[in-house]
């Protein structure tokens, strides 16, 4: 019977209970959905890594011998080793896309995975090409591909299209933000298929630890074993693709973790207010049940079960729908960035824990709400609760109070006497505007990076990439043809105390096409002596201007100390920057890697010494592609925000309305017209919405910051929300509040004056 009572009670208070159900559903929906997404990505990647025996360490150096391979494999903690030759070349195709060619004589580690054509075989003569690259450039199995590799040209038949676990994030280096399959790809060629293959050196050694072993100690022993013969040892934490993918998963995990907190909090608050209302309204019924001989435990269990069923129902629906819907929405966006052989959502045990959390939130708050009514002896419960002593607060005694007018007094008192209900409304609005800002601000922040990078910092029109061994005469000829600024970009390790970070080493020639800004966004020039350090790198190393750091360009053995003359802030590429004059004072010579020029450049591709040509527009486009790829995530955020706001505000309105029906009826009897009564109800809504907005804006900014900071160490994105986005968020929240209130105040007409004033029950 009590079960039926519960169901009918729920029908009577359907708005409240539906909103609790929805909140619990949404919380679990979002959590399990995002969880299923990243969990699935992780699982698929792990399987991919294992199936293809992805290496754990990459030692980049020169001339690795067969003895080196067996020496590496014999190191403690190492399970297998393989050497290969990796060369950056250019495919002879329109736009001269870069192609990284891996030359193999065995295929045990980081094996390519064929998706079309034949499996990779070291005994065959041909090339296995990056499937995404092939698709983007219109190539298929059986076509002939020509590649220019360090001056020589080879032509091979494409025997298969492959994916590689080293290129889930398929980019050339970390200066590129979005993979562009048309501009970069990788290929695998059997060593014996190349002319003079036997004489070719090996410049990479891959080592697998076979799981288990402690990565740091293996890395250390590798560094010792090959001391002086390597330029860098990469691990899965520093190898670009694996590291980036790991970051992406961490980011999704962070979003999935923060999101549901808001919903669960709302669910708990809504449950608390609703159950407090319900049980105090049913005080007499509780007394009746007690007098019938129902035990305290049984009655408590009855009321707590409201929370149990609602939380459970919402949670289970969320558990089923979340992992189905959210990965389906997010995977298409991930697919534009990452290459995985399979995309599958995966449900984990943590998802069931989320349902438990939802249930617990509802359960505890309903227990908390009805405990109060159950404390009294049954005789007392049968009497109506003595009205609260209603002490006047200091505010209510002051002269200011009297000058407030009826509407303000009425509403203020109502808010203060119903703190939990008001808190729920405020938290709901905070959540709403926070999610709106998050969605819009994330986009703004990345757009702002584009604007800052290509509007203020990099004002060149074209970046001409130079070959590493460009001859002086060729450089002079290029400079004469395209006047501009020389730039040297290299990777380096930077050390302060015991902390070592990898970063960029940038040397800037004379000119104003490549600029710097300080932490406050003001233009600055590089110091004439010593280096400038980027803001984020300074933070990572814990240094400031005036300190000394040591750096070592990749491939060099000795550390060089340099004094920090200034700090600059850059959204991408953290590290040290020198003016060419200051760099030469340290005793090094500048070796330019790029020539920046103001205008558009055509037909520079074939010129001697030119490696590639990138227009500024291409760079901007790749950034914008990143923003576009976030579209569906942003849509989810905004949708969730609006739903959250609407549900919470409607709930608040319904509660406030129901509780004040008698008061409103009295006002109606006194002759207040509908418009006045509506205004009265609207006032409170506006106050609480405004308060929620004031609190929600900083929260929104905070979460954008959180999200941006989970991006890689090399980026330093500053939270930026455009005035338009801010205005839209505020306006949308207010509009929502008004709309909900309008819906609610239509009920004013239906207040039955006589009925509402007659019965006490």
């Amino acid at each position, binding site marked *: 019977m009590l079960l039926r009572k519960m169901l009918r009670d729920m029908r009577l208070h359907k708005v409240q209970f539906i909103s609790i159900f929805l909140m619990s559903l949404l919380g679990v929906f979002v959590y399990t959905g995002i969880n299923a997404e990243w969990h699935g990505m992780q699982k698929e990647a792990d399987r991919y890594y294992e199936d293809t025996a992805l290496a754990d360490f990459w030692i980049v150096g020169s001339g690795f011998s067969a003895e080196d391979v067996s020496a590496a494999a014999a190191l403690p903690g190492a399970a297998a080793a393989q050497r290969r030759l990796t060369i950056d070349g250019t495919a002879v195709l329109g736009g001269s896309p870069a192609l990284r060619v891996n030359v193999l004589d065995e295929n045990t580690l980081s094996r390519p995975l064929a998706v079309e054509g034949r499996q990779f075989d070291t005994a065959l003569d041909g090339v296995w090409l990056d499937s995404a690259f092939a698709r983007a450039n219109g190539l298929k199995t059986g076509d002939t591909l020509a590649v220019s590799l360090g001056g020589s040209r080879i032509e091979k038949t494409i025997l298969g299209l492959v994916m590689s676990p080293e290129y889930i994030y398929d980019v050339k280096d970390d200066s590129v933000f979005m993979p562009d399959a048309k501009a970069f790809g990788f290929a695998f060629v059997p060593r014996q298929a190349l002319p003079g293959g036997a004489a070719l050196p090996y410049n990479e050694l891959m080592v697998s630890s076979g799981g288990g072993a402690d990565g740091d100690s293996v890395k250390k022993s590798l560094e010792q074993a090959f001391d002086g013969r390597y330029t860098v040892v990469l691990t899965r934490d520093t190898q670009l693709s694996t590291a980036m993918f790991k970051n992406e998963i961490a980011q999704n995990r962070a979003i999935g973790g923060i999101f549901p907190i808001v919903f669960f909090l709302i669910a708990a608050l809504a449950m608390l207010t609703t159950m407090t209302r319900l049980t105090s309204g049913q005080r007499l019924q509780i007394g009746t049940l007690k*007098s*019938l*001989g129902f035990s305290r435990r049984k009655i408590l269990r009855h009321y707590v079960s409201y929370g149990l069923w609602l939380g459970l129902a919402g949670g289970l629906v969320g558990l089923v729908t979340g992992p189905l819907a959210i990965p389906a929405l997010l995977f298409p966006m991930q697919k534009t960035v990452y290459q995985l052989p399979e995309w599958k959502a995966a449900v984990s045990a943590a998802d069931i824990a989320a349902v438990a959390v939802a249930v617990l939130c509802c359960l505890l708050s309903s227990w908390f709400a009805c405990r109060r009514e159950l404390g009294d002896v049954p005789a007392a419960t049968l009497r109506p609760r003595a009205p609260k002593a209603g002490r006047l607060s200091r505010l209510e005694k002051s002269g200011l109070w009297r000058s407030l007018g009826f509407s303000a007094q009425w509403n203020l008192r109502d808010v203060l006497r119903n703190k939990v209900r008001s808190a729920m409304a405020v938290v709901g609005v905070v959540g709403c505007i926070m999610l709106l800002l998050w969605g819009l601000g994330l986009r703004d922040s990345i757009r702002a990076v584009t604007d800052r990078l290509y509007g203020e910092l990099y004002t060149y029109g074209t970046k001409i990439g130079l070959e590493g061994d460009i001859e002086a005469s060729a450089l002079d000829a290029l400079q004469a043809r395209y006047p501009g600024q020389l730039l040297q970009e290299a990777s380096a390790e930077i050390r302060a105390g015991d902390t070592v970070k990898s970063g960029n080493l940038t040397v800037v020639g004379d000119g104003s096409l490549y600029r710097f800004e300080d932490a406050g966004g003001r233009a600055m020039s590089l110091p004439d002596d010593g280096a400038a350090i980027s803001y984020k790198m300074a933070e990572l190393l814990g240094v400031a201007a005036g300190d000394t750091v040591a750096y070592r360009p990749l491939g060099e053995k000795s550390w060089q100390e340099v004094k920090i003359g200034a700090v600059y802030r850059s959204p991408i590429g953290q590290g040290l920057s020198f003016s060419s004059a200051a760099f030469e004072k340290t005793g090094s010579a500048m070796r330019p890697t790029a020539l920046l020029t103001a205008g558009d450049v055509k037909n520079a591709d074939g010129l001697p010494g030119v490696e590639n040509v990138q227009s500024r527009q291409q760079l901007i486009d790749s950034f914008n592609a990143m923003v576009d790829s976030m579209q569906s995530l942003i849509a989810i955020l905004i949708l969730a925000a609006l739903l959250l706001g609407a549900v919470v505000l409607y709930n608040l309105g319904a509660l406030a309305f129901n509780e004040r029906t008698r008061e409103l009826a009295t006002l109606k009897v006194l002759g207040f017209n509908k418009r006045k009564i509506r205004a009265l109800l609207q006032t409170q809504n506006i106050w609480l919405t405004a308060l929620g907005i004031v609190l929600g804006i900083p929260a929104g900014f905070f979460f954008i910051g959180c999200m941006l900071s989970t991006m890689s160490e090399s980026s330093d994105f500053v939270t930026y929300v455009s005035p338009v986005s801010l205005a839209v968020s505020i306006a949308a929240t207010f509009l929502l509040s008004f709309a909900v209130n309008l819906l609610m105040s239509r009920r004013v007409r239906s207040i039955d004056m006589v009925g509402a004033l007659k019965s006490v029950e």
Partner: protein
Amino acid sequence: MAFIEFRDVVKEYGAGEHAIRAADRVSFEIEKGEFAVILGPSGAGKSTVLNLLGGMDRATGGAIRVDGTDISRFNDDALTSYRCDTIGFVFQFYNLIPTLTACENVALVKDIVKNAADAGEALEAVGLGDHLRQFPAQLSGGEQQRMSIARAVSKKPKLLLCDEPTGALDSETGMMILALLQRMCRENGQTVVVVTHNTVLTQIADRVIRLKNGRIVEQSVNPAPMRAEEVSW
């Protein structure tokens, strides 16, 4: 030994100087199968006595013996099962669960009492056989009170306690309710205790206990109780 015995029962609300004595050394007896009326003006302590007898509240002092057991020392759990097994309550305002139908309101007690009477039969017995599926709000006051009586007796209690059962009803309907209660007493040997301020009820009672300011002022046995239908209001 009488079925119900109150011995010097004291009930105080509040503490110290401000303590209010709602029952002051109340002593009385009621025999099994009697129709007893506790009479008194507002604030005389009638409801206090009824709440103590019904196990809804605990006495400050004295002993309350029901069917040989002293309930005044019971803890909460024992009081709960005492209410459950021994007492049937009928309230002035019926105290029905508004979200349950007539049948469900009565069947509710099946959740806690093992050998409860069938809800349909109980309602049939109070003349509500045609209203099983209706909600309390759809019924008149008299019908609601009958429903509440059906709920109380379906537990087959040893003692039926009624707090102003006719207080919210017009005289004719009130008479019907009293007739119903009296019939249950006469036909089924059900012990009934009614609390009221209405002196008319003394005419139909087997025993009358008068309270004033928390004290017993008179206790008498009615040698010739009238039938409820014969009483003029």
